[in-house]
């Protein structure tokens, strides 16, 4: 399915090049290339949402449908159907976008190359949810593992970490793109060539860039401090590089000062997020002040014992 997608996009690029040279030749080459590709799409089986129509004679119908769709595509942002268009993605498209965020390349702009100006909300939403979930789970797991190694630490499940993780990740993934988008629009007057990204494209870029933090957080379970900082630096580098490569084409026409300040602010905020997660979710519990007698610590924590309740509530 990914190969069919690649074929479609290359076809459009060729078509636009041909249109620039000879407008008349464009239509014949498109319809000629459409037939074999249509057969390829049929052979593959299920088509993606970008898949070309199978029959050539439906091309005119498709054009009419597209026009209709564009006219109908005016529902307000308060309606459900407005958001439906942002979830119209395939498994292969989401995986492709994740791969694109993991491996930033200098020439490839994430928004133009991978999003193709069709941002989706599925990726950012579930990447943030996964990151919050994984942060809370691994934060608790490090405490469990630390307790196994050192029985003087008393562990109780810290459910408040789930809420803290959720709120902080979602606020970062939505408020920072909002601020960035607002700032870029404010500076729009300075730029002639390239318009700013839409708000949802910015949210998409940020959401997919947070994906690399998920394996980093899982690897933070290894209790070796320098290794944890190394993984953190690697992941932060990858993620921030992706963001900078995406923002550079938009920002480079601005004055150098504004460009540098903006890019360093973006990288700094990203670094703050990573360091904050490390320090808040992976801090070790202090050992309990009154060491409980051995037979109480060997009991499983889920059977409530009234006499030990005040002691067990103290460190949480």
């Amino acid at each position, binding site marked *: 399915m990914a190969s069919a997608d690649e074929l479609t996009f290359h076809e459009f690029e060729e078509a636009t090049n041909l249109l620039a040279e000879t407008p008349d030749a464009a239509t014949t080459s498109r319809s000629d290339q459409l037939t074999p590709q249509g057969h390829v799409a049929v052979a593959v089986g299920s088509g993606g949402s970008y898949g070309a129509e199978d029959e050539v004679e439906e091309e005119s119908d498709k054009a009419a449908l597209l026009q209709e769709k564009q006219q109908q595509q005016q529902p307000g942002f308060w309606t*459900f159907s407005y958001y439906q268009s*942002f979830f119209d993605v*395939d*498994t292969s498209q989401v995986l492709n976008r994740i791969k694109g965020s993991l491996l930033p390349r200098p020439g490839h702009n994430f928004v133009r190359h991978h999003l193709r100006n069709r941002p989706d909300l599925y990726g950012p939403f579930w990447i943030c*949810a996964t990151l919050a979930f994984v942060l809370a*789970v691994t934060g608790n797991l490090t405490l469990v593992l630390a307790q196994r190694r050192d029985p003087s630490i008393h562990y109780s*499940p810290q459910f408040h970490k789930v809420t803290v993780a959720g709120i902080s990740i979602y606020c970062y993934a939505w408020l920072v793109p909002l601020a960035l988008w607002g700032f870029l629009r404010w500076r729009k007057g300075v730029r002639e060539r390239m318009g700013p990204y839409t708000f949802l494209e910015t949210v998409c870029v940020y959401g997919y860039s947070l994906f690399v933090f998920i394996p980093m957080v899982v690897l933070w379970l290894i209790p070796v401090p320098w290794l944890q900082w190394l993984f953190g630096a690697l992941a932060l580098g990858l993620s921030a590089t992706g963001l900078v490569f995406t923002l550079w084409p938009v920002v480079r026409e601005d004055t150098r000062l504004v460009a540098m300040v903006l890019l360093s602010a973006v990288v700094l905020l990203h670094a703050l997020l990573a360091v904050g997660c490390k320090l808040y979710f992976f801090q070790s519990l202090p050992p309990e002040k009154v060491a409980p007698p051995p037979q109480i610590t060997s009991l499983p924590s889920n059977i409530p014992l009234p006499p030990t309740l005040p002691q067990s509530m103290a460190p949480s």
Partner: protein
Amino acid sequence: MLAAMKNRKSILELGIHFDHIRQKTWTVLNPMKPADGSIINETDLTGPILFCIALEATLLLAGKVQFGYVYGMSAIGCLVIHALLNLMSSSGVSYGCVASVLGYCLLPMVILSGCAMFFSLQGTFGTVSSLVIIGWCSLSASKIFIAALHMEGQQLLVAYPCALLYGLFALLTIF
């Protein structure tokens, strides 16, 4: 004899078809078998409620009194998946249908918590088996949703939120 027939008739009038329940249970228990989309459209909550009660009973026998969490997580999870499926599919889906499918696919989780009664799951074997069970539940659920809503190429996208939800249930079972 007459009383038994009367009872059967009144059960059928309630809309409880035992062969449909059995068919849906076999669909869940066999994740490789393709699902039949038409049986899903009836909102049947008998099976799900039975499985929820079975899950809570096994949790209780393992020593965890957490009824509130089970109901709370199921309700919120159903809401989120209902919203997501309405956004992702071209045809809408009702809340009852979502609750019914998610409840049926809770059956492997009941098996997992049944095992938790006999030995602790906080080891390598427990982790591996719970991962397998989570995968099983979410694959079945996404297979049924895909078949019922005619969504193509989005099975993993639907399976992933279901896996997160069943992961929460598994965490409840293990810890």
